[in-house]
Structures are given as C-alpha cells and as structure tokens.
C-alpha cells in the first residue's frame, strides 16, 4: 500500500482539478447546461457546488470523471488532460458517491467495497485488510457488517458504506453528488460530522454537490454558488460568502441568519475562553466563597480529582455550604472543544447561567464560554474577512456575459 500512498495521495499537484472553459451542450436543448466554466479546485480541499435544481451541478461533476463528455473545453487533473485518458481507468482513480450510496443490492458490504481494488488487481489479503480499515474509518464494526447485504443496513449505514467504497482504492479525488440527500436530518448531520472527521484523516480533493446551502457552509472549504442559468455567482470561502454575499441572489440563497450561520464555522477551541473559579470537594464553603468574591466572580465550578466538572455553584449556594460535597449535577451545560460556536450557543441558551463549560477529550474542564465571548468572535470573524486579502480561487463562466467582470450599475 505504500506504493499507492506515495504515488497518489502525497502528491499535491496531481490532485488539483482545473476546469478550463468547459461547456456541455446536450443535444436538442436550447441553451448549454454548462457554459464556458472556468473553475480551479485546489488539492486537498472540499469544494461545494451549490445552486438551484437544474443549474448544471451534476453535469459539472460528471464531466470531471467523464461520465459525461464535455462539448468543449479541457479538464485537467494535475497536469494531465482528463479528456486524453481512458474513461474507465480515470474513474478508478476518482471515488464517486451518489445519493443513497448506490450500493449493489446483490453484493455484500465487503464485496461492494472490494470492487475497485479488485479491478486494480490488489491481492486478496490487501483487499480484505483494506475492507476492515475502511469500515473502521466510517464507524461500522467490520465483524458485524462485512457480510451483510445492503438491505440489511439503515439508510445512514448504506451511505457510510458508499463512502467507504469510494475511498477503497485510495483515490486522490472524491466526487460526491448529493450523497446525504436521502437520509433524515439527524442522520444527515451525523454523516456530515463524520465526513469532516474522515477528511481530516484522508485529505482528499473533494467535489461535493448539494442544493442545501447550510450543508455547503458546514462542509466546504470553498463554495461555488451557481445561479439559475448555471453561471457562477460567487466562488469563495464560506466565511467570506456569509460576510460579503456577491449580490442579492447570493444573499437570498444564504437566507436569513447569516450571522448565526457564521457560528457554525468557528469552533470553541478557536476562541479565547474565560477562566472560571474552581474548587474541589472537601474544601470549606467559606474559603471558596472568599476566593469567588475576591476575583469578582459570581460562580464556582467544582471539579473532581481528574479535573472534570461535577457542579456549578452560585455565591448564595456556597454561603449555605459548610464543606463542598461530591454531589454531581447531571444537567451541567457542557460543550466539547471541537463543538461549533453554534452548538455552544445552544448549550448556553439551555442553561440558566448564560454560559457553558468547555471540556477537552478526557472531559476535564478547560474553560468557560459566555455570550460575550460568542459576540466578540462574530465581530472578529467579520473583521477578519474584511481585512483578509488572500486571493479568492478562480471561478468564472466566460459563456455568460451577464455576470462578466464589468461592474453592473
């Protein structure tokens, strides 16, 4: 496997995708579905294609792996022109995930995953090892799921296997066409979180089609927003799209609550947390109260021997305690460091204290997050976006003059 790793995954340049003035005109249609599309998809990033139905997202995606042949233009994968390659061989180097997973119902989970490695001539042992690895990666127990048939899996599990199958032969590129469109909202959210985690591990170049803007914001490093006619309206990071929508169409598309959506972009670990006063069971109530008053705080967090918060007491509660006991409050507002600010806000709103305690992986207290902190970081995000002058990625349509660079007045 080391051979595949060094030749494919680690070579940044070979994973950049460039669509160069690509046009697709379906026979018998008045207008091209995709018109002079110029788009650069940087290596190792998740690029979301989002826009209304029929705007050419699927067509664009399928031209990248040549399930659809462009009418004109070039598509480059690294420095190779995709249109010169054998279509089937090209597709074995690009994972492809569609809605509901597209699993073959007459093959077991293992057989589904094994398809591409088999075509590439991997040994039986290597394939078998890889199947276990991938099932672990998508959080399915290999012992339980290897030999099941797709109909014996839930929709979410089928979708996970779909992702595992697409990753099987370690393709540098992953193409996903509304993969989570057919599952319920809670499963979808979980699959999205999972994809983020998987991407941290595998670092693929991912092109992901969706019509759900919130999904685009959540998953994308970059977002391409297509208009009704298939022209690119904006191509930028989710932060900048939220802060500076290119025009009314994008603003409408973002919908209400752009500020709230920004909160899904920042993680708790990225903000400066407050330091609460802490104490341990067994300390004298009066001593702790004195400490709280001294530091001008109103509350104290009681932590156990391993630094894990067990309760959160007010001055008044403290004054009634002789010594602090070990009793555990099960309803503490806790958030993990990896949570989004949006999740943190949820937890804060649910607690009466207008704040939440932040814990690390071993559930130990690392700090406290408050409304003030969240507000500050929203403002900071805005300011960052305004001053940031790193280049936006390349993405235009030459074929649609109405959105050319000419300023519209």
């Amino acid at each position, binding site marked *: 496997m080391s051979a595949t790793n060094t030749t494919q995954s680690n070579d940044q340049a070979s994973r950049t995708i460039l669509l160069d003035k690509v046009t697709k005109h379906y026979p018998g249609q008045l207008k091209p579905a995709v018109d002079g599309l110029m788009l650069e998809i940087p290596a190792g990033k998740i690029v979301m294609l989002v826009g209304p139905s029929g705007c050419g997202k699927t067509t664009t995606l399928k031209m990248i*792996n040549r*399930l659809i042949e462009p009418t004109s233009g070039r598509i480059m994968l690294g420095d190779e022109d995709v249109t010169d390659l054998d279509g*089937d*061989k*090209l*597709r*074995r*180097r690009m994972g*492809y995930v*569609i*809605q*509901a997973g*597209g*699993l*073959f*119902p*007459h*093959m*077991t989970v293992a057989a589904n995953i094994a*398809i*591409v490695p088999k*075509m590439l001539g991997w040994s039986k042992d290597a394939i078998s090892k890889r199947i276990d690895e991938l099932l672990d990666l998508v959080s399915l127990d290999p012992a339980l799921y290897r030999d*099941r*048939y*797709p*109909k*014996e*899996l*839930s*929709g*979410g*599990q089928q979708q996970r296997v779909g992702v595992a*199958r*697409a990753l099987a032969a370690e393709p540098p590129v992953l*193409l996903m066409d509304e993969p989570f469109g057919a*599952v*319920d909202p*809670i*499963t979808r959210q979980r699959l999205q979180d999972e994809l983020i985690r998987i991407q941290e591990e595998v670092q693929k170049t991912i092109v992901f089609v969706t019509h759900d803007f919130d999904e685009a914001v959540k998953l994308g490093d970059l977002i391409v927003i297509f208009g009704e006619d298939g022209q690119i309206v904006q191509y930028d990071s989710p932060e900048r799209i939220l802060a500076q929508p290119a025009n009314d169409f994008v603003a409408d598309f973002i919908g209400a609550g752009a500020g709230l959506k920004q909160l899904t972009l920042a993680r708790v670990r990225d903000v400066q947390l407050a330091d609460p006063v802490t104490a341990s069971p067994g300390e004298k109530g009066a001593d702790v109260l004195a400490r709280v008053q001294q530091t001008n705080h109103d509350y104290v967090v009681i932590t156990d021997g391993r630094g894990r918060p067990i309760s959160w007491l007010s001055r008044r509660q403290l004054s009634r305690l002789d010594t602090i006991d070990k009793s555990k409050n099960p309803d503490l507002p806790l958030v993990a460091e990896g949570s989004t600010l949006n999740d943190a806000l949820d937890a804060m709103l649910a607690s009466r204290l207008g704040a939440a305690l932040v814990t690390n992986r071993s559930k130990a207290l690392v700090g406290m997050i408050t409304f003030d902190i969240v507000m500050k970081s929203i403002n900071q995000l805005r300011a960052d976006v305004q001053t940031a002058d790193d280049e936006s990625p390349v993405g235009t349509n030459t074929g649609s003059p109405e959105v050319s660079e000419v300023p519209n007045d």
Partner: protein
Amino acid sequence: MIDTPRREVAASGTTGRSLIIQLAAILLALAAFAIWVATANLSSTERATLNSSALLAYTGEHLALTFVSIIIVLTITIPLGILLTRRPFVRASGTILAIANFGQAAPIIGLVVLLAFWLGFTFWTAVVALVAYAALPVLRNTMIGIQSVDAQLVEAGRGMGMSATSVLLRVELPLAVPVMLSGIRTALVLVVGSATLATFIGAGGLGLLITTGVNLFLPSVLVSGALLVALLALFIDWLGRVFEHYARPKGL
C-alpha cells in the same frame, strides 16, 4: 442509531412450503393414475396404448420437444433481449417485440399445421412452431428485467470505473435474474402444454394419447393423455420454481 438496521427474517419459508405441497400433489396424482392403470378393467386396445414402456416413450418425446425448443428459445432470445437494451439497438426493440407478440398471438395449432406444409411433418417443424410461440415471454422479461435495474446502480458502476460490459455482467444481469427466470418458467409451461399439438404433424409426444383416444373413441386413453400432460406441465413448473428459488441472487 436513529435509523435502525433491519435484519431480514427468512421470507423463504412460505415459498419452501408451497413448493413441497406442489410436488406432493403431483406425485400423489401420478401414484393414483398408476394404481388406476394397473387395476382398471381395460380392453386390450387400451392396454396396448397404456402400457408403461409406451407411456415412457411418449413422455420422453414430449420432454425432448420441450427442452430442445426451450434451449433454442433461450439461446436466441436472451442475447437478443440484452442487445435490445443496449443504447444503439433500443430503437429496434419495438419492432422485435411486435414480431414476438405476433408469434404468440397466432393460434399455435394453425402455426404448427401451416409450418408443416412448408417444412414437412417432422420433429423439427414442431420445434420451430414451439420456439415461435414461446419466444415472447423470455424476450420480454429479459428486456424488462434489465430495464428495471435502477439506473443509479448502472451509473454507480460506471462511476467506479467498471466497463459497460462489466456493469452488464456483474450488475444488470444478476439483478435481472428473478424477472428473467419467471419469463423462462412461463415459456416452459407454454411449451409443455403446446407440445401436445405436435402429434397433429406426426412429431409424437403425449398428444398422441389424446388423438388416439379421440380417433378410436377410447375415453380412458384420452383422459390419461390429458392427465399426464397436465401433470408434466405442473412438474416442469415446479422445477422452474425450485430453480427460481435457488438461483435468485442473495440480498434481493
């Protein structure tokens, strides 16, 4: 897990039971027939026709007609059906289906007799008529079976880098198998029944008992012929069902 997985509970139990019942009924009827032939008070002409070696010979001829015809049907119509679902040939499918439809719609007895005047009064003429008669269900079900495979799956296969042929062999055909098999079983039952008519052009089979029974006015021979044909058809249908049951891909 919000969406819990469903493990399939064996739904095949009921199919298994109905298969056993069908076989038992056939064997029971056959045994009753054998006892009746052995014990009934039959005339010598009747005895001459209804002895076991003659019955076996007629059954053998009947089966030969059936299986030769069905094998020819399969070798012609399955590849044809597959071909007609491939993009360049889809347009021809309407015409071909119309022809196959005509073969089945024409009265088989007329077909047999007309062909005999043209091709001679032989075994092979009967086979040609039976093939024309039974082609439609196999052809149609092959096409329907393939066409009803979810287009998404075909696309998933191509999207993974499987060639068109590989998708056909490993995805489309396996998934079409249940529909194709039921078409084949229909054709088999049609052929077993219609092979009775081969006797009109001297091509043998169990139909001979029926014509003999009518011509010589021997009701017991006539009824025996009809009964044996029916039992044979039921038995072939049973074989088809067993095969369908076990050849159906797992996981569907």
